[in-house]
């Protein structure tokens, strides 16, 4: 029986036998690395402001919207082939909860559930711990540690839009993509540390803040070309990029005194993107 199985395996063409996926390692400054770095930064789990003078044991339930700038055709050309169809969604909607504990400690959690948003579907989670300390001249200092992971999916490598491109792109879709949209997986795993400095402006209920941090990115992009029978074409590699890089934030939190609070920030990851994130929370106090 075993001999028969071995003979069948030997008789199969090379393309049908299982083979280990090639893993290509990229740097942030090469075309593939730049694209992965851009989307990793766009999906980063940032604070969008320190706690807005909440009382302790306050539970905040909110929604954050992060903007993903649209990339040009040139920026989406990652080197080996045609432009990648990565402009799948202009926004990341991120439900988040926070719990303000005594001593200025705040625990935050977020989850982007796997529901379609435009042409993408994500399943991303994040967890953060911060502590706000009051200091000199009414300023507050908030160190924050955050970790996040998960997966975003979409037809990036092979998208039916290629059929509306050049004859060469249409041929690529037929020959390389087997005339099927791909199921690519972007998996950004991140660990970040940042320090936010804020000072309330009581007359307006605003708390402007600035911050600086560093983030460790371990990004994996699994090229999900599908064969005609729907199985994954394992001839395509997995791309991986690891890097540590700084980021900057600036924005303001707003607390009108009621249950609602809000915040917005500009988030800059040098070499990747400058974007804006806004959040609205409803707060429940014990």
């Amino acid at each position, binding site marked *: 029986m075993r001999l028969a199985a071995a003979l069948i395996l030997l008789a199969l063409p*090379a393309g049908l036998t299982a083979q280990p996926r090639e893993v290509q390692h990229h740097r942030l400054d090469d075309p593939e690395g730049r694209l992965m770095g851009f989307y990793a930064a766009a999906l980063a789990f940032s604070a969008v402001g320190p706690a807005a003078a909440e009382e302790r044991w306050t539970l905040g339930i909110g929604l954050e919207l992060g903007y993903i700038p649209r990339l040009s055709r040139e920026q989406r050309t990652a080197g080996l082939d*045609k432009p990648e169809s990565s402009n799948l969604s202009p926004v990341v909607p991120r439900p988040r909860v926070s719990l303000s504990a005594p001593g200025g400690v705040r625990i935050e959690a977020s989850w982007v559930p796997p529901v379609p948003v435009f042409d993408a579907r994500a399943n991303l989670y994040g967890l953060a711990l911060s502590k706000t300390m009051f200091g000199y001249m009414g300023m507050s200092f908030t160190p924050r540690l955050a970790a996040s992971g998960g997966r975003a999916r979409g037809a990036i490598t092979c998208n039916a839009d290629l059929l509306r491109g050049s004859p060469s792109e249409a041929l690529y879709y037929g020959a390389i993509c087997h005339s099927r949209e791909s199921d690519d997986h972007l998996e950004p795993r991140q660990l970040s540390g940042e320090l936010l400095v804020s000072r309330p402006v009581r007359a307006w209920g605003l708390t402007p803040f600035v911050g600086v941090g560093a983030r460790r990115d371990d990004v994996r992009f699994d090229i999900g070309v599908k064969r005609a029978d729907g199985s994954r074409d394992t001839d395509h590699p997995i791309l991986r990029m690891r890097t540590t890089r700084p980021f900057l934030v600036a924005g303001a939190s707003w607390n009108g005194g009621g249950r609602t609070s809000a915040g917005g920030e500009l988030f800059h990851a040098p070499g990747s993107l400058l974007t804006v994130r806004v959040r609205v929370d409803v707060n429940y106090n014990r």
Partner: protein
Amino acid sequence: MRRTTPARGSRWIALSLAFATACADFDSGVDPAFGLPDVVVATPSFGADIQPILDRRCSIGGCHSLASAQGGLVLHASVSHDSLVGVASRLRPAFVRVAPFDPGNSWLVRMIGADPEARFGHQRMPLSSMPLTPNQIATIVNWIEQGARDN
């Protein structure tokens, strides 16, 4: 009656400005040589000068790799020379893929070249990608002119 304070107005202005300034912070900057030396090699070696071009631009997932073998052509280092030299093209059987000493009649040179008539209308290779640089093409031509040896 609702009040519209200067603060409320400035918040909207700030938010609008923030969205307007959001952008990608990188240029495309694809290297046309794909990290390979962009020079004409006068006396090329197949292993040192030709195969690296095939590895980087042709023998990649989905294309002329061992598993995909598009057009029945595999350009992986283990078989590339045998797949090219003296073997009839599947697309155009009247041509051999590489005819030693005769680059003009080598289908490989026609398929990577700029002249669509020489390719009889077939798409230029690499498919949907930047073409090989003129220096890389000249290196391949030199290798064929000198006999397309497996050296």
